[in-house]
């Protein structure tokens, strides 16, 4: 994405045009930055590409059948518009896609293609799974300039390899998605959130573990930097009411519990989802760390011994967002050696370009796995023209 002045940006409006563009790039030894609205442009390794492929022209809903729980739309469709359409039909993407504009300093919530290519899920991940669990089918143009379809429009499908899975979270390095089919689900009628105050991270982690392991079907479990531990219950009104009482009894040892009603609860979880508790100061590195959920507090303890950080613990402890203060570097060594002790992985989500260029953004892989990753990249994109080096330097 350097050499801005030399970059040609193409904005195709049909799949055929995308194929032609990629073929042209292949024939002319160019390379492509594949993007929707560039919302997450500053996440991942910085790239040095010669062309841009703006996919936002491939937009619009091709199919939406609420009673079949299915929606297909162009990959360039605006996420905000699609979410509004779903909301009007009392439905939603159950994985609760985050909007990182606060952290990344932009205003857009991006496109469907960007959402799938990056594969980030929000707080409901603990109950509903991630983006990958809701993508049923994808039409894609590979690095060979060929359009291929994979998956389908039905939930139960084991016909051939599950290519939508590998395209999800591949950061545009395997193909340019043109159309995506999703499983969508009903919006719960209501939600309440239990708030526990003043727990340290170890107690909060334990409270979240108890709640998630109970019958009450928790759909959000987070510890915020202000000391609030939040546990969300969603569903029909009588059910939520009864589960609030059950959960209060389960957590009685943790002291007083407040209950947030629907509006406040919904606001709180939008903030957790979008990681509003961390600062928008782009100089401070932000890490996104996945660990076994019950080990979240232990991880945090290891880090807090070494660094001044602000942390949000989501997914019952399984997802930790860390903002690092007063450091010139992203502190990758400390972050990753703590991950090695506990299991999981760490992604350098936000850092100045120099810092992302100088260290591994995604968790470095052992040799055999890295080699396999490289071979997967090569079969989809033999000349390494699509988002080259965005994920790993080795994949080049």
């Amino acid at each position: 994405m350097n050499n801005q002045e030399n970059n040609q940006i193409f904005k195709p409006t049909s799949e055929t045009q995308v194929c032609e563009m990629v073929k042209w790039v292949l024939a002319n030894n160019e390379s492509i930055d594949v993007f929707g609205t560039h919302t997450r442009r500053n996440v991942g390794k910085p790239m040095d590409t010669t062309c841009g492929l703006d996919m936002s022209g491939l937009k619009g809903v091709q199919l939406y059948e609420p009673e079949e729980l299915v929606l297909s739309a162009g990959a360039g469709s605006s996420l905000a518009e699609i979410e509004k359409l779903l909301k009007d039909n009392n439905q939603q993407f159950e994985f609760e896609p985050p909007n990182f504009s606060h952290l990344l300093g932009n205003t857009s919530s991006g496109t469907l293609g960007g959402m799938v290519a990056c594969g980030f899920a929000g707080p409901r991940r603990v109950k509903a799974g991630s983006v990958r669990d809701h993508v049923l089918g994808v039409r894609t143009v590979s690095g060979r300039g060929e359009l291929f379809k994979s998956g389908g429009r039905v939930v139960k499908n084991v016909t051939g390899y599950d290519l939508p899975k590998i395209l999800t979270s591949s950061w545009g390095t395997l193909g340019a998605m043109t159309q995506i089919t999703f499983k969508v689900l009903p919006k719960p009628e209501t939600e309440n959130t239990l708030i526990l105050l003043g727990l340290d991270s170890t107690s909060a982690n334990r409270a979240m573990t108890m709640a998630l392991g109970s019958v009450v079907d928790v759909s959000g479990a987070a510890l915020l930097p202000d000391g609030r531990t939040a546990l969300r219950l969603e569903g029909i009104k009588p059910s939520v009411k009864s589960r609030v009482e059950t959960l209060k009894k389960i957590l009685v040892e943790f002291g007083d519990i407040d209950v947030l009603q629907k509006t406040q609860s919904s606001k709180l979880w939008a903030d957790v989802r979008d990681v509003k508790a961390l600062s928008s100061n782009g100089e401070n590195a932000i890490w996104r760390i996945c660990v076994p959920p019950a080990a979240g507090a232990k991880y945090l303890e290891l880090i807090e011994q070494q660094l001044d950080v602000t942390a949000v613990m989501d997914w019952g402890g399984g997802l930790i967002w860390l903002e690092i203060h007063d450091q010139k570097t992203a502190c990758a060594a400390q972050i990753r050696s703590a991950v090695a002790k506990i299991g999981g992985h760490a992604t350098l989500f936000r850092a100045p370009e120099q810092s992302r260029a100088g260290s591994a953004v995604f968790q470095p892989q052992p040799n055999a796995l890295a080699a396999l990753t490289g071979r997967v990249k090569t079969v989809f994109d033999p000349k390494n023209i699509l988002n080259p080096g965005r994920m790993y330097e080795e994949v080049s």
Partner: protein
Amino acid sequence: MSHLKMPDVNQDSIRARKNIVADLQSICPGEAVISHENEMRAFESDGLTAYRQMPLVVVLPQTTQQVSQVLKYCYDNDIRVVPRGAGTSLSGGALPLEDGVLLGMGKFNQILDIDYDNRCVTVEPGVTNLGITHAVEGQGFYYAPDPSSQIACSIGGNIAENSGGVHSLKYGLTTNNVLGFEVVLITGEVIEIGGKHMDSEGYDLMGILTGSEGLLGVVTKVTVRILRKPETARALLIGFPSSEDAGQCVADVISGGIIAAGMEMMDRPAIHAAEDFVHAGYPLDVEALLIVELDGPEVEVDHLIKEVSKTAKANNAVSVQASTSEEERMNFWAGRKAAFPAVGRISPDYYCMDGTIPRHQLPTVLSRMAKMSAKYGLRVANVFHAGDGNMHPLILYDANVEGELEKTEEFGAEILKLCVEVGGVLTGEHGVGVEKRDLMPAMFSEIDLEHQQRLKCAFDAKGLLNPGKVFPQLYNCAEMGKMHISGGKLPFPDIPRF
């Protein structure tokens, strides 16, 4: 048996059989190598018994290291390998090859770790699906995917096939319930993916391996998530005068915002066969029967039972019964669960299909299937995972009548093509295997298939793992990986660029 072209036999492997047996014995000592014809007989087919083939030799390793050594040996010597779990595949995924080593994973039967705090269990792949639930149910947990063979099928096989079950609309398939794998590649390399954490890192290799039917690697360890058993479950048994009414009821329940734990439909022939067999008390004067199961807290389930009953009545239901005890709920399910053997009682043989369709296409598909049934002169009974659109038409036939099996397979293929035609897929949960292999072009273009097969090249460039399954043609990685580049001119000069 019908004409199934398997890959040309590698005569070198056949000639070297003696040495191969000896070499495998040195890798896996003791009784782990089976080479006598009588003993290998048990492995000659899987759950799709119409296809049979004796393997070159059977090896039953016990450790990851042995699997790694066996695979590396086969890789170095260009010997084909067919992995096998419990052998319950309904699509011939574990059908042996004449020139291939059959790699049985049955000795990998240990539960390695139960972690209630992280809500996951790590097991070896030979542990049965139900074995996982049995290990954790004392603490109120269970493993959600529940294929009907769950008492026998192994979790390794579930991964290979991405198995579902009757609860998959609400709780997902195998792929939605796995967290980590240890997997051995054909080169013998051992790779770990994921773990106890959510979201595995990098490309979603776990997602690709799940449902890859043994073509990409051999899983030697797996971490699955476990869920708390819902407080209550109740079921409704609803009779309809037509399948259209039943289908509309399902659509209305879902668009009303209710995701039931299970929604199963049976047609008249299936209802009668099941009722004659288990006497579950099913109504016999209806065209379609729907079982709707709701689970969760008692107050929620009671509320939803009322809602669904209302929706059923609004869709012309002629009988609505709600279970009031666990015994009654189990009784509602008894007929559905016995539907296959029940059909087996009214016909010498039956052939189970597995297409998935968009739900609203059900009446169209049923009526066209009835016409096909008349054309072929073969009866059909239908059971249908109504929540997710996965159909299991059972074609009734008699294998002893000459030509009837061939006719049945033709009928089956026509049904599956119909599923694709209306926007569905060839297989919802049984896998492609050898059974539906040659139908793949009905759903995928050549380019679609090439993109799938190239992925195999990334895992198994020599094409040694389970060849002849899933794809109608073998794929030469070196040849097909080449790229023809043409068109140096900038296309679409009228497209906006900035």
